[in-house]
Structures are given as structure tokens and as C-alpha cells.
């Protein structure tokens, strides 16, 4: 069984934090098919959040095909998520480091770079949502 944590300062919606934590646990192998997620009651008893928030997170995970509710028993993991291959991670880290070098050489400071990164992330992932 995993235990959820909340970061109030992150600005990420509570249900999304729960979804992300399940994703992470799946990638790290902390959760495997057959494992049970904490019940809504257990989560709210610990985090003092609205039970509907937990149910919303679990519905999202169900829609992704990762978990399945079994009436009267709880919510169970039915699929695992492969962790990202370390060589892939390293390849992108190297590309990004090169890019940072050229941004620095062009006179950009850490703040500029972060602003660019955030804008790019938002624009890229917001496509189709807005």
C-alpha cells in the first residue's frame, strides 16, 4: 500500500497530485498489478481532503486503464507502467545541457531560461486542451 503526500505550495491541483504519485509509484515498481490503492476513507483520514477529490483521481486512473474498482473491496492496480529507460533519460539530459550552454552564451540568465522553459511546457502540453 502506498501513502499519499500533498504539497500545498506546488500549485498543482490536489487530485492531479494523487494521480502523479500513483504514476510515479508504478514507474518505480512500488505498485504492481494486484496491489490495492488506499480507500478514499483512508486517504481523507490522513490528508483531510474532500473524498470526491480522491474518487476523481481514481476515476482518472481507471480511464487510463491503470486501476480498476472492485465493488466492496477497493481499487486495484491492473497494469504496470514501465520506468523510463536510463539511457533515454541521459540522452535528453545531455541535449538539454548543450542547449543551456548555448542559451548562457547568448546572454540569458537562469530566470530567462526558466521562463522560456515554462512557456514552452505550457504551450506544448496545453495544445488541444484550451
Amino acid at each position, binding site marked *: 500500500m502506498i501513502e499519499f503526500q500533498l504539497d500545498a505550495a506546488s500549485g498543482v*491541483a490536489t487530485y492531479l497530485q494523487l494521480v502523479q504519485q500513483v504514476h510515479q509509484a508504478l514507474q518505480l515498481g512500488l505498485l504492481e498489478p494486484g496491489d490495492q490503492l488506499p480507500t478514499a476513507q483512508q486517504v*481523507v*483520514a490522513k490528508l*483531510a481532503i*474532500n*473524498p*470526491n477529490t*480522491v474518487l476523481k483521481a481514481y476515476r482518472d486512473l481507471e480511464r487510463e486503464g491503470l486501476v480498476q474498482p472492485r465493488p466492496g473491496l477497493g481499487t486495484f492496480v491492473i497494469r504496470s507502467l514501465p520506468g523510463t529507460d536510463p539511457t533515454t533519460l541521459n540522452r535528453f539530459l545531455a541535449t538539454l545541457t548543450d542547449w543551456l550552454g548555448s542559451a548562457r552564451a547568448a546572454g540569458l540568465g537562469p530566470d530567462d531560461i526558466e521562463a522560456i522553459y515554462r512557456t514552452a511546457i505550457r504551450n506544448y502540453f496545453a495544445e488541444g486542451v484550451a
Partner: protein
Amino acid sequence: MTAALETNGLGKQYGRRWALHDCTLSIPTGKVVGLVGPNGAGKTTLLHLAVGLMAPTSGTITVLGGEPGDGPTQLARVGFVAQDTPTYAGLSIAKHLRMGAWLNPTWDGDLAKRRIEQLGLDPRQKTGSLSGGQRAQVALTLAIAKRPELLLLDEPVAALDPLARREFLQSLMEVVAEHGVTVVLSSHLVADLERVCDFLVVLVTSHVQLAGEVGTLLASHHRLSGPRRDPSSLPASQQVIEESHTDKQSTLLVRSDGPILDPAWTVKPVTLDDLVLAYMGQARDTERVPHQGLSVI
């Protein structure tokens, strides 16, 4: 589906002062509702009207489809914990539970006993000797054990220290998860409610300033900042709730159902706290300058 609480032009007058005025509101069942507003905004009045402790001066109020306080059946469907979670100081916890059993047709004695046990309280203890947090938990236990469909709580955590506050909200959310009860809780601090409520009502100077699902409200409000400009030049679909300007820059909080496409703006999401403060500020400003246009630029 019947609304948990529905009001139409509801008003309550004390002498010449309106404590609540022209309040039209519909709260669906199954929600945890945050009723937020500064002190004296009319939160307690609205809750008292919903319980049936007083009658409205004007308008109508329906609770779970019935008239507030109309007979034993209606009374049994609504649980109420008044401000400062009052109990009878000279009576033991056990006597409070016995009284609850006598007074309520739908009393769940096992639930009450189990909760007192879980809280680690001695039933022989008089409630006058309990800490604020413990007393609040006992009051909540009494309200829950009558198994209401709607639970109304007036400033339940205002007087509690941060730990007791958290424990209280944890118990309350457990009850919601277990029994699916609709909850309305008032507070003058939205931070207390941010994690628990999924429906928000902002009450300012006896008026409903804002009401809706928290998710929808957050998605439809944005914080814009960019080069200074006149807010009246914004598209009609964007309603300005709050604005501040320096000689070069404008910062706005707008309500807009569509996305903000103007590239001149840096768009940021808002928090529940931002929202409540903006609407409270808007109410204050309209009161100060009733009919004047916004004096900007």
C-alpha cells in the same frame, strides 16, 4: 435531483439592518460547501435560517425539499453545530449521548460510542473540562450520530489550534466518505477550507458575491499581467474582477470561460484564496463608489 439548500430572494432584517439581503442560491446535494465571508457578512444568519432557528423576513428557503424546522422529520434530516461548538459544560459526554438518543428519532448510538472511543475520550468526563478541539469533536459526534442528510457547521474550526483544526477536518471528511452527507461549513478564512470544499459560496455585506463548483471557478478565472492598458479594451467575454496598475504595468484578475489568447498577457492560474479576496474586494469597492465608473487611466 432536490437541492440540499435552495433560496430565492431570501432576506433577514434585524431592526433596520438587513443581515442577509436578496440571497438567491442553489446548493446541490453530495457537496462539501465552503461558506466564506468576512465577519458580519450574514453567514450565521443564513445557517440559522436553514436550520429553522429563525424565520426569513422576505423570500423563501427550502432545505432538502422541505421547509426548515418544519416538524420532527425535517429536523432529523439536518444536523447543526453552532459557532464555538457549544455543549453543556456540566454534563458528561455519556449524558450528552443519552440526551442525543432521547431527542433524535434516527440516533445511531453505536456510531456515537465508537467515535468517542476513537477520540480516546472518557465518556464520564464533563464536557466543561475538555480542550477546545475535544469539545468540537464531541459536538461533531452529536451532530453526526443523528445521521443527518445535511450537516451545517458554523465556524467549526475558527477557535481551534492548527493541529486540532486538522484533526477536526480529518474526522469530518471521514464522515463524508462514509455516509455521503452534504456539508456546509462557514469560515472567514478560506485557507481552512481549501482542501475540503468542492463548492464555494462567498457572502459579503449580506449579499451572495460568488457561488459555484470550486473546479469550475478556478478554471474560469485567470490572473493576467502585462503592459499597462485600459481594462475596458478587453473582449466582452472577459469580466474584470480585480485590477491594479502601475505606470507601466497592469495586473488583472478576470473571469472568462474561454482561453486568454492575447499574447501581450502573461497568464497565471488563480488560487481559491486569490478568488475569494478578489470578490470581497469587488464588493467593498462597489459599496464605496456605488454608481461611478471605474476611474482608470
